[in-house]
């Protein structure tokens, strides 16, 4: 009896220490990602005028307008100082021009939108009561919108990236899928050598391929074109597709195809009507993997583009050249990261399945 309790205690102690370790790891994973997202929602004022910077972006900005003999003053609530601080022009009047400038300044610096009429109303209150405090809801997506407005060519770069990814998926899934089917269903001479070379091609540094491809693509008229870049990406992605589709086809029993053939279909018919529908989710996963690979790639894109960069190149150049403020750049990075994160989470089952099937 006593022993049983002891064992139980020991087990629960083990359990709880496991969960403590896991919580620690989860914290380490989430911690920096949280701040990447957090920064992307911060206004310029929060990013550059509050210290220490807020850990959680605020959802509204608090303002105060007061007045003395020189005119009106705008103040903003600074959380780190815990008091109202001067904000924008030192003094302003109730002229249309001043109020218009003020409205623009508020929008740019604190990501909050206010109309000129509203400012006028507040000024009237100040006239009668000497000061007014008010808060405006922050536009949380302002950095994301601004990133695409101010960073040169960002919207077009997204389009380029999508085109590159689309072409890469098409090429790598057709060619790689055929290869994967052959690997899964047939034994043929040189299969293992081919498997090794597929691995080797995949491992080959992208940059060592991209640089010589510059001249070759230029001769084909595809340099600085989405299609040209996707031809280079497909080299690595075909290998990946072979692995994934091979593991997908292997999981579908041959007996199903054979049964269909007994009922009078051809081998191609059996593949088309039996195997393909069953393999569809796996093929979609393979497509998503190709998408992630080409959507995230930087070095070959830097080498192979000039006026038509892909989205990661635009973010990379903004970051290296410090073209923009860090809150804008984090917004651009999150915009770039989101599709990759979402697709990875969708296909996580297949990623594990694939690595179970890959043996060097």
């Amino acid at each position, binding site marked *: 009896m006593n022993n049983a309790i002891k064992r139980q205690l020991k087990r629960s102690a083990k359990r709880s220490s*496991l969960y403590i370790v*896991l919580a620690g790891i*989860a914290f*380490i*994973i*989430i911690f*920096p*990602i949280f*701040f990447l997202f957090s920064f992307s929602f911060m206004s310029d004022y929060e990013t550059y005028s509050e*210290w*220490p*910077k807020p850990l959680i972006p605020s959802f509204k900005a608090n303002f105060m307008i007061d007045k003395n003999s020189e005119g009106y003053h705008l103040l903003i609530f600074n959380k780190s100082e815990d008091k109202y601080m001067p904000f924008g022009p030192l003094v302003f009047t109730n002229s249309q021009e001043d109020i218009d400038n003020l409205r623009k300044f508020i929008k740019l610096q604190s990501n909050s939108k206010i109309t000129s009429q509203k400012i006028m109303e507040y000024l009237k209150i100040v006239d009668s009561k000497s000061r007014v405090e008010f808060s405006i809801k922050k536009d949380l997506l302002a950095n994301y919108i601004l990133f695409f407005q101010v960073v040169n060519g960002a919207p077009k770069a997204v389009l380029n990236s999508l085109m590159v990814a689309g072409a890469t998926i098409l090429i790598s899934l057709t*060619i*790689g899928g*055929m*290869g994967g089917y*052959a690997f899964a269903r047939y034994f*043929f001479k040189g299969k*293992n050598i081919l498997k090794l070379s*597929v691995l*080797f091609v995949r*491992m*080959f*540094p992208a*940059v*060592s*391929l991209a*640089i*010589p491809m510059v*001249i*070759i693509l230029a001769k084909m008229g595809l340099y600085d074109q989405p299609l040209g870049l996707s*031809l*280079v990406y*497909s*080299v690595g992605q*075909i290998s990946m597709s072979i692995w994934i589709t091979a593991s997908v086809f292997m999981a579908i029993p041959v007996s199903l195809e054979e049964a269909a053939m007994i009922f009078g279909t051809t*081998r191609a018919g059996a593949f088309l009507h039996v195997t393909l529908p069953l393999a569809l989710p796996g093929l979609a996963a393979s497509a998503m993997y190709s998408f*992630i690979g080409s*959507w*995230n790639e*930087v*070095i070959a894109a830097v080498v192979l583009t000039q006026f038509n960069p892909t989205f990661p190149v635009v973010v*990379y150049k903004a*970051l*290296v050249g410090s073209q923009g403020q*860090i809150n804008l750049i*984090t917004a651009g*990075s999150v915009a*770039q*990261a989101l599709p*990759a994160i979402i697709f*990875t*989470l969708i296909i996580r089952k297949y990623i*594990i*399945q694939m*690595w*179970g099937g*890959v*043996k*060097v």
Partner: protein
Amino acid sequence: MVPYLLIAPVVIYYSIFWLFPVLNAIIESFRNVDGIWTVSNYIHIFKDPVFYQALSNTAFIVIFSVTIEFILAFGLALLINTKFRGSSMFLFLAMIPMSLPAVAVGAMWSSGLATRGWLNSFLMTFGFIDDASKILFLAGGKMSTMLLIIIIDAWTVIPFVMIILLAGLQGIGEDVREAGAIFGGTKFQILRKITIPMLKPTITTAMILRIISAIQIWLIIVLLYGFNRLPVLLEQVVLNYDQLGAEYFERIGLALSVLVAIIVSAAAVLYLKVSGSFEKEVKQDE
């Protein structure tokens, strides 16, 4: 006949878009701007002290980051493989760093490690430091710079290594280890005599993939420190090819990229040879 027809497009594609450019690169790396055959590109590289710095920095980062990442990832994989409640949730979480694009990782850490970044803000908000004792994360010497890069790299890729190992562990099956336990093996003995030997192909895969991509580290270094602060191989390729803006340097970059390809391939073959996987595959083929 059918398998060869299915394989043919792969072989043709690789010949046109892999073999041809690779051969082209090797040939062009032995020619100068005027198209004259020469080894001057390589002489330039081998005379450049920065190349040797890049080589040793890369080697240092590869050796330490791969070792640390493997040990931690293996421990994690063993832990998660116990199938505790919430393990799939945990796996879900572990997949996120692996899917983050390199530029997002760069933005994340450069906004964090700046003197007025989120890490110092966090430490200040919770009273660990005050304004005067802000930590200058990015201003350290060479050793601390490399250490920081190794830590960031570990954060990014440990989940990836862990997932490969986990897939391998799940392939082994519980029964083999149970058999080991029945015959009186301790946990450590089971790990050493059963789990690790059975996991060897997976370990080889994980190590090869990691060594190869660790050699190609560059973006996070450039995003945090800019060019030439901590020279590594691939950063030198991009610097010469893309940044210096003269055809002379483009050729140097091309020759460097050939060297990187040789180093990467040699490392992979060396690892396969040492671990004994290479002979096995070739033998199976005969």
